[in-house]
């Protein structure tokens, strides 16, 4: 009997996971498994592990336990340095949503303009070419200095990093709408607004959505780094804070959760992209 490709792939995935978890478990065996290592004597312990060749890494069981713990109480709030992972994630998602939303509002209309007017396209091209490759974090000091608010600065950084792929893709999608579809609209005397919404937008939508999908991925990458810098709240800050607490278990947990949320965001956009794609 032969299983389908899908079934075989699932089996292989499961095998890889089990092998990985086992290897991880065996590799860190012998470490004290006493929950989050907030022990002020951790430094001494480090010395001990160093001398005795033991690992300070938590094992998969520790991380699993931590995940369950977080899942049970995602939204607790014990002051600025001890909040549930759900609250921290919420902050990050909120910032991404705000920065990304602003980027959509700017990039799509501007991309339309660039795509429709070769003159505007040429005029803006040097600015886009120079600003696009700048790491979004390089904007951070400027944002902090001018906006003077760390939360808003993080949102600005998300905005600036999500704007480029959407802008470039929208402009490209709009500029490459098939001439014959535009001619159909012209011969039917369709006005410019109706043409934009009934011909150009649907024709360019798959390209625009591709840009939006790239953007959300980048935004989710950048938010972690941005929050590490500005501090206060958010999953990035959580990671940095737990590193300072030397809780590797929490850091690994956060990595998993960040990956999970990133995947969900990507899937959402992928689904939207499928909905606007048309077969030719």
């Amino acid at each position: 009997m032969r299983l389908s490709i899908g079934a075989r792939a699932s089996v292989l995935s499961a095998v890889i996971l089990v092998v990985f978890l086992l290897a991880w478990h065996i590799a860190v065996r012998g470490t004290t498994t006493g929950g989050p290592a907030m022990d002020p004597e951790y430094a001494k312990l480090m010395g001990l592990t160093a001398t005795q060749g033991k690992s300070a890494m938590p094992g998969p069981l520790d991380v699993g336990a931590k995940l369950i713990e977080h899942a049970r109480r995602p939204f607790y709030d014990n002051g600025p340095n001890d909040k549930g992972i759900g609250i921290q994630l919420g902050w990050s998602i909120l910032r991404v949503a705000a920065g990304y939303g602003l980027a959509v509002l700017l990039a799509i209309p501007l991309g339309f303009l660039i795509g429709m007017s070769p003159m505007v396209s040429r005029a803006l091209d040097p600015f886009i070419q120079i600003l696009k490759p700048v790491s979004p974090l390089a904007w951070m000091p400027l944002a902090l200095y001018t906006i003077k608010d760390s939360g808003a600065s993080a949102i600005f950084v998300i905005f600036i990093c999500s704007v480029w792929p959407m802008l470039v893709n929208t402009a490209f999608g709009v500029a490459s709408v098939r001439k014959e579809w535009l001619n159909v609209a012209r011969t039917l005397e369709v006005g410019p607004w109706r043409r934009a919404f009934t011909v150009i937008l649907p024709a360019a939508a798959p390209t625009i959505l591709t840009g939006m999908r790239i953007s959300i991925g980048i935004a989710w990458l950048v938010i972690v780094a941005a929050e590490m810098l500005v501090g206060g709240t958010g999953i990035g800050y959580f990671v940095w804070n737990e590193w300072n607490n030397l809780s590797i278990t929490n850091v690994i947990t956060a990595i998993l959760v960040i990956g999970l949320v990133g995947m969900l965001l990507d899937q959402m956009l992928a689904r939207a992209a499928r909905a606007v794609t048309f077969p030719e």
Partner: protein
Amino acid sequence: MNDRFISFEGIARRYPAPGGAQTTIFEDLWLGVPKGEFVCVIGHSGCGKTTLLNILAGLDAPNGGVVLVDGKEISGPSLDRAVIFQGHALLPWRTVLGNVAYAVSSRHPKKSKAEVEEHAKRFIKLVGLEGSEHKRPAELSGGMKQRVGIARALSIEPKILLMDEPFSALDALTRGTLQEEVRRICRETGQTVFMITHDVDEAIYLADRIVLMTNGPGAMVAETVVNPLPVDRERTDLHKNPAYYPLRNHLIDFLVTRSRTFRDAVPADRDPRRPPAVTIPVPQPAESLRTVA
């Protein structure tokens, strides 16, 4: 007025050529089309047929001269002149009904959605696509797509129908059926049609008059040929008519040699404003056959 319902008056079209020069596609071109007439333009590839049609459609502007429709100079595309594009040009994200309804709602912006759909369905039925209203263009065969294009163009009930090699991408069988339908519909409605084709038999079957264009650059309308076949002709019986072969030979002869040599021997008295209207004499033996029968 009605014998120049469409009137090309001295139009010219030039494109910049490499090295700062200009290529003249055609120049000082005059042509009139009476109302209700079905005109086919034939000529070699690249002579400027599409350019001519696009200028009439308003999608392209001439570098000189004007085009009058019903006595008025055209300035850009209009709902009065519907175009059936060579590559069907359906909007792939819309269904058959959506594509036709898009045209109908452009023509009648005040109609309700239900009225628009009902109007669109009437034309979908006319081209024999009932039952496929909710399919998308990707789910249709080439012939069906072209039918949607025809329904879309007819649904706005234009004064003039423009067709740029509408059937050239279809197989012979589908092409034949669509030619018959287009001829039926256009005859029933007395539609004025300006059509481009490569296919001599298509021109003979469909056209009331055939416009012969010489090779470019600098293409000219050599003459227009009046189609002597009866109006109630059958596509499959064309060759039985005694006028068929002389007409066909004349057209083929034009395409093979005269389209190339015409410019070298332009008649001295040729008036570019009035390209001669030629009638091909029908050979007489047919007469004796008829008396025998």
